[in-house]
């Protein structure tokens, strides 16, 4: 009896939090779903009417939708590749005993604390600006024509900026994992005749497999919704060269005032994100089992 009572009490106690969280999620989700089936234009308030699947049809057949999907995948994939490879290298470097280790570690982690808009603006105006940027000065000093990053290689520039922000996260997680590696295993491999490269390949990489999947999962969730960096640098352009799904939804609903189509895009984005999440969870599940 006592346990049944306490169980009921426990449910009652946690219900405010659960209800709040549910409302927090369900109300916006429900409204988005509802809007996505409406003909809802901000320029014509009060004329909302039922629209069926038309919003979905127009969003999916919009040529910029394909571009946005490709850009989203390139952005996520590019940043993941750079941060995972770079993170492993940085972690190996920081794991070495050296002078000023504590300070260097803090410095390496610092980019993670810079707001996305700020870091994007710093990169845009102080580094990549074709006239005043450091890269332009370097190019001039070398006698090369400076590169206009956001005009010539816009997506690569944004991938680079986002990677710079996320590299510390990957480094930190991989570093703690490297430090938890049993030193005796490395020594055993050394006795067994494995040189450094082989110790890295056969002992360290398998040990890092699990933290790498964690890094991929967490980063993917955040990278699918990159927005600020695009807004303050390229505004999705030139053309649709840097428009990802998030930015396309913003364009639809707030620049073209078509809330209905924007909501339809939002629902599609939710579905796509869930597909990615299912794949990732299965991958991680496998890795955590092993």
């Amino acid at each position, binding site marked *: 009896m006592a346990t049944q009572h306490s169980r009921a009490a426990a449910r009652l106690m946690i219900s405010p939090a659960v209800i709040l969280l549910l409302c927090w999620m369900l109300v916006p989700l429900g409204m988005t779903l509802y809007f996505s089936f409406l003909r809802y234009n901000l320029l014509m308030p009060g004329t909302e009417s039922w629209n069926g699947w038309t919003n979905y049809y127009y969003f999916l057949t919009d040529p910029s939708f394909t571009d946005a999907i490709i850009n989203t995948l390139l952005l996520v994939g590019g940043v993941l590749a750079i941060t995972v490879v770079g993170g492993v290298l940085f972690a190996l470097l920081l794991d070495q005993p050296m002078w000023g280790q504590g300070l260097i570690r803090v410095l390496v982690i610092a980019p993670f604390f810079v707001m996305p808009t700020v870091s994007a603006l710093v990169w845009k105006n102080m580094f990549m600006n074709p006239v005043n940027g450091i890269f332009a000065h370097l190019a001039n000093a070398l006698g090369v024509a400076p590169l206009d990053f956001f005009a010539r290689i816009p997506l690569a520039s944004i991938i680079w900026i986002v990677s710079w922000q996320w590299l510390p996260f990957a480094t930190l997680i991989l570093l703690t994992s490297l430090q938890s590696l049993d030193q*005796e*295993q490395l*020594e*055993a*491999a050394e*006795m*067994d*005749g*494995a040189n450094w490269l082989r110790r890295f390949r*056969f002992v360290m990489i398998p040990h890092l497999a699990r933290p790498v999947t964690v890094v991929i999962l967490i980063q993917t969730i955040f990278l699918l919704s990159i927005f600020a960096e695009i807004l303050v640098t390229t505004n999705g352009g030139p053309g649709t060269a840097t428009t990802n799904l998030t930015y396309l939804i913003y364009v639809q609903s707030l620049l073209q005032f078509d809330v209905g189509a924007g909501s339809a895009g939002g629902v599609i984005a939710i579905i796509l994100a869930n597909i990615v999440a299912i794949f990732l969870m299965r991958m991680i599940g496998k890795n955590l089992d092993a």
Partner: protein
Amino acid sequence: MGRITLSQVKKDFGEVSVIQKLSLTIEDGEFIVFVGPSGCGKSTLLRLIAGLEDITEGQIEIDGRNATELPPAKRGLAMVFQSYALYPHMSVRKNIAFPLRMAGVEKSQQDRLVEEAARMLNLTDYLDRRPRQLSGGQRQRVAIGRAIVRKPAAFLFDEPLSNLDAALRVGMRLEISELHKRLETTMIYVTHDQVEAMTMADRIVVLNDGRIEQVGTPLELYRKPGNLFVAGFVGSPKINLLSGAESRKHGAATIGIRSEHISISTEGGDWPGSIGVSEHLGSDTFFHVACEGGDAPITVRADGEVDLKYGDKVFLTPDTAQIHKFDSRGLRID
């Protein structure tokens, strides 16, 4: 095959000297045990021989070849670690095959050698399991298997049994001794447990504070401890050490007498006292006797049938021929 000579080997960690100028020759096929209290440098000495630490001064020779500067893999030694250090993501088969794979041995040859080692260690049924699916004793055997397949000049064991429970430890002790008899390869074994040292070793090296206190067969150390430290460290229960009036009677600063060389009687003897705690092992009983005028209780071994109770008045008589005498520096007087 596996003769290892250390000459004037010294190891410093910064300011701290861990091994102080030490020379030792380990004969081929010998089972030698480094024993000492924790922090005496026995593990460091083993790691110096393995090449996992660089020596500060001196020279190491393996098989008559100067190995001082050789990297660990080139020394032809195999090591079994305290934590077993198995590769968790590899099956038992791959773990055992790893050194062969690193040496570039052909695949069919690898399989044959792994099967052979597995048979020798009763691991055949577990070859496809991962290390975490094995018990402590099985993991230990896999670690030994990984060492065996390389056919090393010598095996190095770094406290290999300290993570096992007591019953398993006795079993593994026998298995390792058995293995040594079969392979006839040099084995260097580090432990802090003097029972392991006594039961397994051909020769024991007693280390203290980075110095060798004494080298000898187990019975030599037991019967003729060279100094107070060895006398106190080797043997269980601990030797009884007496100083003061009693030792002056024998012309020594300290005398030591083992529990089995004292007889106990209720009628009369040299040292009157009363029974304190008694430990009944069945075959033997150890009495801790508080003697008049003595500060520490004296441990006496008696037959398991002797029936004495707490507080009983008794008399102890030492066998004077078995008394070990030590001078004021702690060295043995013969």
